[in-house]
């Protein structure tokens, strides 16, 4: 399978505020998305998953490493970025905030094509995108404004806006977090349908492990700027190896096992612990201390999608 989107040894460091250390939001990540594949990137807030998503679409310039789209390393000139965005599109969370309240649905979806000079048969392009996003018949929706639509319909407009440029990959940051429970499934179904009908690839960023189970082929679990475990959804969610993944799964209401509540403060990217970055909160290490946990740094996971599941932990290798 062809790789359509890749990051190699990516780091994004935000400069220090006064008196504080720089924040290592993304601290060495390898990740690949292959054609027609849906990859879920999961983690808690502050783990760097949104920064990684923004770096993937060129909105954040990495401090180190590379973003590779369709085999070409991403350049950061205006022209290079513009060309890249026909290939990779971002779908934001909270469609209510992502849409301009004074812009009609037609104009919102046409914005991308207009910026790219694709004004030939613009109407047809916009209507096709609306129909693909499930707003049928498109003529009925094109003239509406965001406030005349439900949250689910607004998210479909945002997705139609991404589809209008016929990208190969969409990067969706919490695409259903702000939607109601019953609408959530409809939007997830749409992402699956787009993959099946258009061969679209997707990287879906979420805090919700159930979302990965619902739509993803592979999953990467992120903690404090690094991917700590990756593999197929079945491997990672049914047979988790990393103690962090195991803890995350154990606190779900239907997990059927005693919850492992992690103690201690949420991780802070301005002071990443040495050795394994999870060691201060790790229940495995608490049970059987090992000098490697706080003494020996772990290598960055290769992110090779054809390899079997990988976990960044001294104790479970």
């Amino acid at each position, binding site marked *: 399978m062809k790789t359509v989107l890749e990051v190699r040894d990516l780091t994004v460091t935000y400069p220090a505020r006064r008196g504080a250390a720089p924040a290592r939001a993304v601290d060495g990540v390898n990740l690949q998305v292959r054609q027609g594949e849906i990859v879920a990137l999961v983690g*808690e807030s502050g783990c760097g998953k949104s920064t990684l998503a923004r770096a993937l679409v060129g909105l954040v310039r990495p401090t180190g490493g590379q973003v590779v789209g369709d085999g070409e390393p991403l350049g950061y000139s205006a022209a290079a970025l513009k060309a890249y965005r026909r290939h990779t599109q971002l779908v934001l969370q909270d469609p209510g905030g992502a849409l301009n309240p004074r812009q009609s649905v037609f104009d919102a979806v046409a914005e991308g094509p207009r910026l790219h000079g694709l004004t030939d048969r613009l109407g047809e392009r916009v209507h096709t995108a609306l129909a693909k996003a499930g707003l049928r018949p498109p003529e009925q929706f094109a003239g509406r404004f965001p406030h005349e639509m439900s949250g*689910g319909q607004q998210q479909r407009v945002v997705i139609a806006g991404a589809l209008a440029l016929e990208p190969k990959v969409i990067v969706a940051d919490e695409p259903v977090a702000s939607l109601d*429970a019953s*609408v*959530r499934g409809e939007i997830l179904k749409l992402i699956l349908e787009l993959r099946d009908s258009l061969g679209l690839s997707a990287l879906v960023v979420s805090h919700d492990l159930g979302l990965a189970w619902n739509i993803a082929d592979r999953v990467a679990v992120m903690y404090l700027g690094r991917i700590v475990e990756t593999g197929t959804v079945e491997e990672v969610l049914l047979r988790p190896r990393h103690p962090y993944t195991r803890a995350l799964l154990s606190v779900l209401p*239907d997990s059927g096992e005693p919850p492992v509540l992690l103690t201690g403060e949420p991780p802070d990217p301005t002071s990443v612990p040495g050795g394994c970055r999870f060691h201060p909160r790790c229940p495995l290490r608490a049970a059987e201390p090992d000098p490697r946990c706080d003494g020996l740094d772990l290598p960055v996971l290769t992110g090779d999608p054809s390899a079997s599941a990988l976990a960044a932990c001294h104790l479970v290798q």
Partner: protein
Amino acid sequence: MTATDDTRSPAPSGEGAPREEAPPAAPMLDVRDLRVSYRNGERTVPAVRGVSFTLDRGQTLGVAGESGSGKSTMALSLLRLLPSTAKVTGQVLFQGEDLLTAKWARLRAVRWSAASVVFQGAMSALNPVRTIGEQICEPILLHDKVGQKAARARAAELLDAVGVPSRRLGSYPHEFSGGQRQRIMIAMALACRPDLIIADEPTTALDVMVQAQVLNLLGDLVRESGIGVIMISHDLAVLSHMCERLAVMYAGRVAEIGPSRGLIDEPRHPYTRALGRAFPTIGDPASRLAPAGLPGDPPTPAELARLDEGRGCAFEPRCSRAVAACRTDTVELRPSGPGREAACLLAQEGSEP
């Protein structure tokens, strides 16, 4: 799951077993035909359209529903916390007294000391320019008639109880993480030892791990103190885990109410079933690469106003099992099993919809 059930059972269940100090009289909270509508210019928009339930000390009731289902409006109307554009009718009998007609001074005495609220979004509910110590002490000083020193001591004790170090009484809200702020909100709600806590989406904005910590804490406190809890959430799985009974609201009414396990395992109302499937169980092959949704959208305020005047089931347009009668008949809650009721023409005891 079983482990939680076992630890929960010694707590007073309330149902059929009233506590000694309360003679077998009325339940602690008895809500009868509660209706709330908002005035919006010329129009009146119904938000809650006739909700009734009871709750005793030590009982936990989860209220689930989507945005616009009226669940938060219903919960906040119990203590008359809604803006003046809201018109509330019905009865809210709390310890025998109707809070909807109570004098303002009486209501103020009940708030905090007998019944308190954990709001969603702790950042906006806490005052950013006052220390959390001052904020926790405020209701204690007001209601318990104790001195500064005793109030501080109680505040410190409360912070420790919710797992926030009490030496941080002098810190401001922005110096805490989201999970800690939500714990502080719970500490405030407990400050005057209330009999009832209304928790409005207490963990919605939190990460899974922090959510689990906060829910664990809330569960422990309820078991230890025998407080009655009404918890509002959109997440049926979380509610069924935390609460003995569940009420599922749709379009301002209760669609189904009954013991949590039964509602989750054998939903009688098609909407409960859809809501239960919306969040998959990891490992369940039926939901793998098959997200379950519900076509259509909840009724808009205008549609709600029309529904309120006419007959028929509010859920009919989205229901895959609707029959002709669903559009024409009046649909009321009807018994659908031991201790449960469902507002569906097709719901019968022992049969799934």
